[in-house]
């Protein structure tokens, strides 16, 4: 007989009853998945990264399945922050879901504008600052590839939003020195890190003999990138053991979630797995609970970074 595991976790000052979250961009604003499970059964809904203005995103084709993964090239299609705050956040709070709002901008100023609009919204648990979306026209806009630009975005959001709401900086694995970028955004005011965004990739259609995606390049997700996520989380947790990490990248089972937790994640987001299975989050959550109990953990927190322990 194993004792029930205390499944709760924290990211900054935000508390969550379970460590399993949706991944931004893979659950819209929750309405679609609500038919399949109650949204308050999971740790939190991380909403699709929203920009200041409504946006059409990239042309189709926007998707290509790859071995154990997929490329997407959505390009941050969305309703804009005003419509999102008016319609989606109140609905999520009505469902008693915990909400992490993900924001994305084209300029440092746009992130600050978004932060200003979020400041007065009550009921949200944290803000994810997505500085690593690969699906933008100019790779120069991927702030997370530039240590200085990353800092400036987070600094602007922190100064605008004030001291209470936890800031989670979402970083890209497509960099040479991830711990250095992580350290920079933490110094600028991030309370936690989201690792990893998709990995930049491309598929060429051998019939048309051109890039398959409308946007040419896309973000690779799914089990194919899980080892990249585990490496990134392990590296950053080793460098910054006190900074909580929201881990993600190809998690499709409780076993995968546990792997990310052992590497150093305090919470785990599930993205692409929901495309293949609308109840993936619940399945993963149940499997993770059993795996933790079977290994003798009485709290989830004990397992965070356990792979780093001394011999």
């Amino acid at each position: 007989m194993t004792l029930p595991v205390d499944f709760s976790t924290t990211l900054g000052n935000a508390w969550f009853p379970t460590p399993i979250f949706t991944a931004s961009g893979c659950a819209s604003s929750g309405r679609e998945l609500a038919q399949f499970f109650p949204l308050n059964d999971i740790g939190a809904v991380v909403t699709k990264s929203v920009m200041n203005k409504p946006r059409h995103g990239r042309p189709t084709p926007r998707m290509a399945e790859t071995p154990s993964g997929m490329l997407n090239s959505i390009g941050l299609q969305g309703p804009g922050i005003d419509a999102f705050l008016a319609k989606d956040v109140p609905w999520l709070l009505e469902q008693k879901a915990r909400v992490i709002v993900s924001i994305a901008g084209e300029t440092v100023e746009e992130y600050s504008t978004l932060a200003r609009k979020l400041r007065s919204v009550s009921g949200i648990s944290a803000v994810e600052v997505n500085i690593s979306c690969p699906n933008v026209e100019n790779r120069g806009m991927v702030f997370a590839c530039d240590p200085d630009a990353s800092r400036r975005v987070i600094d602007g959001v922190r100064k605008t939003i004030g001291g209470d709401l936890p800031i989670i900086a979402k970083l890209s694995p497509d960099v040479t020195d991830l711990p250095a970028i992580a350290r920079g955004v933490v110094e600028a005011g991030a309370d936690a890190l989201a690792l990893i965004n998709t990995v930049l990739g491309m598929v060429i259609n051998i019939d048309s003999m051109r890039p398959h995606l409308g946007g040419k390049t896309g973000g690779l997700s799914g089990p194919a990138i899980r080892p990249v996520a585990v490496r990134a989380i392990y590296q950053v947790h080793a460098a910054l053991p006190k900074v909580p990490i929201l881990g993600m990248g190809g998690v499709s089972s409780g076993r995968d979630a546990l792997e990310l937790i052992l590497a150093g994640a305090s919470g785990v987001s599930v993205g692409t797995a929901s495309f293949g299975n609308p109840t993936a989050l619940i399945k993963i959550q149940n499997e993770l609970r059993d795996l933790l109990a079977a290994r003798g953990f009485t709290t989830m927190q004990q397992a965070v970074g356990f792979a780093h322990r001394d011999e």
Partner: protein
Amino acid sequence: MATINRSAQQQIVTVVGNKRVGAYHQILLHVGEIVKNCRPGNFVAISVGGESSKMVLRRAFAISRVSDSSQYGGTMELIVAPHGSGSKWLCAQPEGTEIDIVAPLGTAFGIPTESVNALLIGGGYGSAPLFGLADVLKSRGCKVDMLLGASIGSKIYAPLEGKRSVNSLKIYTEDGSMGETGRVTESLLEIIENREIDIIYSCGPMGMLAAITELVSDLDVIHQCAVEESMACGIGICMTCVLPVSNEDGSTSMLRSCIDGPVMEGEKVRWDLVGKIPEAHQ
């Protein structure tokens, strides 16, 4: 309370039939109560490849027809072309296999409240859902004519039992191996006029749907089409299957063909912008 995917259920179901019909497979699933919520035009999203599959995405298939008998319970029929790795896997599943489905999904064809003259146009396996639709229309007193087209005769799907609800059936193939040589749009305007068509329902390749929309744009005919755009999830969360669709105010939105489709008003789809992005607020 869910506001989207309201009737959808995820369920493990059993394959109870799988036979080749021309270039396609007719697959019958025992789905039980789900049939009560299925309407012509809805689709099903199926997990493919089994436990250790490298295919992470569901495959969407139009529901060809459903039936509910006291002997067998609820069954769902799909007409599947074994083209890609996922559809080939599905077509290789023998009777007795258990598969994971989510259904019903998407919008359905609008059924008129009065008896009208309907023309159903199918391209390739796109004809599959039209026979179930024909049954419903006939039961409402509508007169139903049908045009089917494909590149070659073996790609025409027209089951004998399906023809019962159809007043007339005309077949076109591009190579002339079955029916008349040519495309379904060949004498479309003439047929609409002669048969006093009030509403067109179409399902097939995007090029065909666009061509029909253009031909009927000046006529007083309603055109509802079931679009086909590649999907990753089928439930509205991936945002990959979007199409440019006109709003009331003249602006254009990128709408998901899984949630706001597959059945859409032909004239609302901005066929000229498919594969592009609308001008405003890029």
